[in-house]
């Protein structure tokens, strides 16, 4: 169910567009749902469709087209490491491998404790900051040497959010 608070966030997005173009807010609404629920479920798509006056399939088309929507639940922390060429030249690939080793998963997988999902990603638009990664769609982490990766992973494991999810 979409809560009142979520609906208020939706309203703010819809207000940006002409009244007959509410559909323009679909990307924002989907990302809000993802932020609150961790992924975009079929139910959430249906509710957004109803809210925006769209066909549920039209919403689903959007979810599946864009890389950042999680169509399934992911770990508490989704880590996207850029490995595109400019980053690859500055150890982006190595950062990904380092995390694979550290977390004991391959890219695309989630750790057994459900804390981390590790993914390779395409250019994040922060190439001069390589190695660079995006955490939970909203936090760009720059210059991620192995030391910093250790610090990040240990830091996240010790957060209240991590403990809650166990």
């Amino acid at each position, binding site marked *: 169910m979409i809560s009142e608070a979520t609906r208020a966030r939706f309203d703010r997005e819809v207000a*940006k*567009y*002409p009244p007959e*173009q509410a*559909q*323009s*807010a679909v*990307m*924002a609404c*989907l*990302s809000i749902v993802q932020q609150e629920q961790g992924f975009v479920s079929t139910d959430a798509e249906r509710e957004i469709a109803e809210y*925006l006056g*769209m066909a549920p399939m039209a919403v689903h*088309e*959007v979810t*599946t*087209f*864009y*890389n*950042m*929507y999680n169509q399934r639940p992911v770990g508490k*922390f989704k880590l996207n490491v850029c*490995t*595109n*060429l*400019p*980053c*690859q*030249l*500055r150890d982006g690939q190595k950062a990904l491998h380092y995390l694979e080793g550290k977390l004991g998963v391959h890219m695309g997988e989630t750790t057994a404790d459900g804390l981390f999902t590790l993914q390779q*990603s*395409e*250019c*994040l*638009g*922060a*190439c*001069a*900051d*390589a190695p660079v990664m*995006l*955490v*939970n*769609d*909203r*936090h*760009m*982490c*720059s*210059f*991620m040497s192995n030391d*910093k990766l250790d610090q*990040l992973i240990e*830091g*996240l494991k*010790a*957060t*209240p*959010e*991590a403990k809650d999810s166990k």
Partner: protein
Amino acid sequence: MNANQVLNQFLATGVQTCFHDRHISPQIYAGLNGSNWSLKDYEARGGYQALRKILGKDGSSPDPETGVAGMTQDQVIATVKESALRGRGGAGFPSGLKWSFMPRQFPGQKYLVCNSDEGEPGTCKDRDILMYNPHIVIEGMAIAAFAMGINVGYNYIHGEIFQVYERFEAALEEARAAGYLGNNILGSDYSFQLHAHHGFGAYICGEETALLESLEGKKGQPRFKPPFPASYGLYGKPTTINNTETFAAVPWIIRNGGQAYLECGKPNNGGTKIFSVSGDVERPGNYEIPLGTPFATLLELAGGVRKGRTLKAVIPGGSSSPVLPAHIMMECTMDYDSIAKAGSMLGSGALIVMDDTRCMVESLKRLSYFYMHESCGQCTPCREGTGWLFRLVERIHGGQGKAADMAVLDNVAESIMGRTICALGDAAAMPVRAMIKHFRPEFEHYIEHKTSLVKTAA
């Protein structure tokens, strides 16, 4: 610490990337330090003076002949034409000319759109503009909207830089509260509403018509051009789209005049340009320098080739532009015409620098994967062709290449070029052809010996 606090420790500070004294005559990045992005700081740097000027609200006296204060729409467009400002998004299309295509008298809604979907591998300049100097984009858009008689605009921001989206929204609030946006701006009869919209991970949405589809709440598949957005754009209405950096250049042009802007670059290439330098240099980052500056100077600003190694090649305009070997690159100046003459494109101004330890087969493999991954799938040559290209290069890299593969690669690239709806098809094919043209022996060696010709670094 909670998760936000942990993550904020790794936030970029811009220190390395754009707060350095290695720009040459900067206009957009001038005077930034990371904490002076807000409205009052921008005003202290002379911000919103250009908007005041065109609206006749800068205290200057009205034109003695017409009795009108400020500038007319035609005067603004003429100034931008005179400046020789060219689109900073990649194609280098003259901005003043584009603005003059807008059917100003068209009754009904028209739209202005800023393309901040920066996703071309190597490009990270718009992010620093929006994060550290967001008002310059707002002012540039307000001026553009005035010149073209537009009342509503959107800034489409790359989904991956969400913090930048939040920063831009905060700047919009400030500008609205101060009367620089909204109804009757600065007491004039001109109104302009501006909003931010974010993407969510699709490179293709940087292509202007895909961006419009996405802004309409659909999947981002490019439209056929023509019609160009100037006649059929957002919601089917006349629309002008420019890159973030293009808009950011406008306030300076209005304040100082088109001629002055032109003079800081070179003929047909007015002004300064921000170059994102990545890869094998000592100091990756964004460098704002006059168009026409020698490449050698830019390389020096970026600290030279990393670890004192030798320059091998440069991809000069984002990953879609054809690679140039060092000896050609060293002869180039950084402007649209010089790089085009050398057989590549200035593109988005992102230089991917590679030293002599880099294997071109491996590099091309990663690039080809990207285009396969990001093809929207609409056109068969692009959808199938990008997959072919990747698998061929992957096969060569995996030691399974055949002598005939070189011809096949060239052939597949050839059959994509010019046969697709948008330029992504060409963008996938051009790098392949350029790699083969300039580094053919490396590919042949790999096929024959199943290993790289290049001694890679430890």
